[in-house]
């Protein structure tokens, strides 16, 4: 294991440091030193870039700020680099050559905050293509109403343009050319093999971070929960933890246990969902139906415990809103026992089906070295042998009291990632039994708490898809800056690596193996470099027919 004390010594020499909490030290760097520091950090193995955020603090101290959060898993510690950017020269050096994971973060800081980086960046990665130039939504210059007024005329112009097109009788088949609808994935193929992959997304950009700056602290958990309808509770917990961390609030133990219990229930439902969808893509619909059949019991259980099948709505800053009584605990244990038996039977059968085995085994290989360099998270990285798991590396909630060993596999292919998820379902059932047994008495939320401005906090949670990390800078009534980083965001850069030189028919399954958070009825744009033909094809059809779907 590298000597991390050398890293700390180096940083303390060139920068002033300030502790954010007992595990996090923040170093204020001059922007000229940033590239050098990034080079040094990238040479240390086991230091991962967890997130980066840009913040507009010109009203407070006259600067834009960039905050890079690096995590040292084995020490359970974080290093935050704070880099002030002057208003007159809003630029920063790009560190993406040394810290590859910084690529998308720089793109986002460029798009939403207007920080220029020392490399050529495509415009409008997150925002629509015709978004007005030099209007950066996350800057404090613009209120949400201003932004709506600026962009609304363009939408109306677009609508009229679409209407004008309708007047022309153009024979358009069921497949649309790449004019107005960029698909999420563009796959460039030569014959059956994929040679290049481009990703375009952010269809789901709803302006959440900007919205939170005008909401009260206790309204934001509901906003956070709707970031993703499958793993929303991890975002709401992560936000609450970030605020509690920033304001040094001590959440009652019973609340921590309840949060962990609901988190594990969410993990089970998400993995069962994924397994069903994976079987559907392979064409094994029996597996899909049975998986979702046993998953329904988990949804009913979640509704019994929280009041809603999904988007549970039980988190507030300082604890939870609903308690679990003895009756509910007994029901929970009964459901888990049943689930374990049924799942074991089903998964043994399903993974032995010849077509399932042949489609999953050996496809979508992810080399462990790339996984480490890109700072990947979740089952994606655990399937390639790296035991990264927030529950063990940066313990939170009740995982501080109950140990968790990450489930790993070493093969790095789609089967490995599927097996990691299967293992985690069994692990979650065991964990739930422990948590339900050990849950202490006490209150479920803090009586009251006072917000303080200008405090920094980090909240991170292991979602079913990987690490979720939120960074928060508090304001008096609302969060001043809230940065959400979902796991799929971190894992998507790995998809081109897994797809390159693979078969076209394996692409949908490989894309699905990182458990991406977009709609399953999606399509991919396939471009055949040999013939020049391009077609937008539903992923399910691609999985079944491969190159044949192009004809």
């Amino acid at each position, binding site marked *: 294991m590298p000597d991390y004390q050398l890293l700390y010594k180096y940083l303390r020499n060139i920068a002033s440091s300030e502790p954010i909490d007992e595990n996090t030290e923040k170093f204020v760097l001059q922007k000229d030193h940033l590239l050098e520091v990034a080079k040094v950090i990238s040479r240390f193995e086991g230091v991962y870039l967890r997130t980066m955020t840009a913040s507009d603090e010109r009203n407070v101290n006259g600067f834009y700020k960039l905050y890079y959060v690096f995590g040292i898993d084995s020490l359970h510690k974080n290093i935050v680099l704070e880099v002030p950017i002057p208003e007159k020269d809003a630029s920063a050096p790009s560190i993406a050559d040394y810290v590859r994971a910084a690529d998308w973060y720089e793109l986002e800081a460029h798009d939403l905050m207007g920080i220029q980086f020392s490399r050529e960046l495509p415009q409008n990665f997150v925002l629509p293509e015709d978004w007005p130039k030099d209007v950066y939504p996350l800057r404090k210059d613009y209120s949400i109403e201003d932004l709506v007024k600026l962009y609304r005329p363009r939408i109306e112009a677009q609508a009229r343009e679409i209407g004008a097109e309708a007047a022309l009788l153009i024979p358009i088949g069921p497949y649309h050319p790449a004019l107005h609808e960029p698909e999420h994935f563009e796959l460039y193929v030569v014959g059956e093999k994929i040679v290049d992959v481009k990703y375009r997304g952010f269809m789901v950009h709803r302006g959440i971070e900007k919205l939170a700056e005008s909401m009260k602290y206790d309204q934001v958990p509901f906003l956070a929960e709707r970031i993703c309808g499958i793993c929303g509770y991890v975002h709401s917990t992560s936000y609450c933890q970030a605020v509690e961390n920033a304001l040094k609030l001590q959440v009652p133990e019973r609340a921590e246990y309840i949060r962990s219990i609901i988190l594990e229930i969410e993990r089970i439902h998400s993995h069962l969902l994924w397994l069903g969808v994976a079987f559907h893509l392979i064409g094994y619909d029996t597996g899909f139906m049975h998986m979702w*059949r046993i998953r329904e019991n988990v949804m009913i259980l979640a509704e019994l415990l929280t009041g809603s099948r999904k988007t549970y709505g039980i988190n507030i800053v300082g604890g939870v809103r609903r308690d679990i009584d003895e009756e509910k605990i007994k029901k929970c244990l009964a459901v888990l026992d049943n689930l374990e038996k049924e799942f074991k039977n089903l998964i043994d*059968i*399903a993974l*032995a089906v010849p077509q399932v085995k042949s489609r999953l085994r050996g496809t979508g290989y992810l080399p462990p070295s790339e996984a480490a360099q890109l700072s990947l998270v979740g089952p994606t990285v655990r399937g390639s042998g790296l035991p990264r798991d927030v529950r063990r590396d940066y313990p939170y909630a009740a995982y501080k009291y109950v140990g968790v060993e990450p489930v790993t596999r070493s093969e790095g292919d789609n089967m490995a990632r599927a097996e990691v998820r299967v293992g985690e379902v069994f692990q979650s059932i065991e964990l739930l039994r422990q948590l339900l047994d050990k849950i202490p008495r006490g209150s479920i939320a803090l009586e009251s708490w006072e917000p303080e401005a200008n405090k920094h906090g980090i909240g991170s949670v292991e979602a079913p898809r990987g690490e979720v990390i939120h960074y928060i800078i508090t304001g008096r009534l609302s969060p001043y800056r809230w940065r959400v980083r979902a796991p799929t965001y971190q894992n998507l850069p790995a998809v081109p690596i897994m797809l390159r030189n693979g078969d076209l028919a394996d692409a949908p399954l490989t894309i699905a193996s990182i458990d991406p958070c977009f709609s399953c009825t999606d399509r991919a744009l396939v471009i055949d470099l040999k013939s020049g033909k391009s077609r937008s094809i539903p992923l399910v059809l691609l999985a079944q027919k491969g190159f044949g779907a192009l004809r």
Partner: protein
Amino acid sequence: MIDMVKFVKVIPIASKVGTVTIRYPYDKPLVTESFRGAIEIDPAKCVGCGACTRICPPKALTLVQEGNTLILRYFVGRCIFCGMCADVCPEKAITITKEFELATDQIHDLYTDVEHELVECERCGTKFVAKKLLDKVKSIVEVLPEDRAKLCPNCRRLETLSRAATPR
């Protein structure tokens, strides 16, 4: 060899499980005791304080003033069924029902209005508070200066200042 035909084992599982289909709407839906459906506002208890409108995350509950009435408007189309309004209401006027059969083809039908009479400021004439809220405050606060109760906050400040300035 055994491995190859293992997948056939799913057939006895399927027959043992039988049919799990809930024949909704001919059967009862799968609603549990904790389920949160649409809310119901008790117009007798509501005093028009607006606490619910301040906590509602999607602003499904809003206070609008139309002429002489203050309306608490509930738009169930935007409701996220979180129940924060019920938790926060000081009069316990909001109950959470188990109603989820809310679909309709007229969006107008998804609105519910609770109308409050407004009190007029004696000095400037602005309508500034719901009558029920004022009555409620009067009933709770023991020492309430009656002569300044029907003044809007602005006028009340001016009145208090002018009294402090003129010696009695």
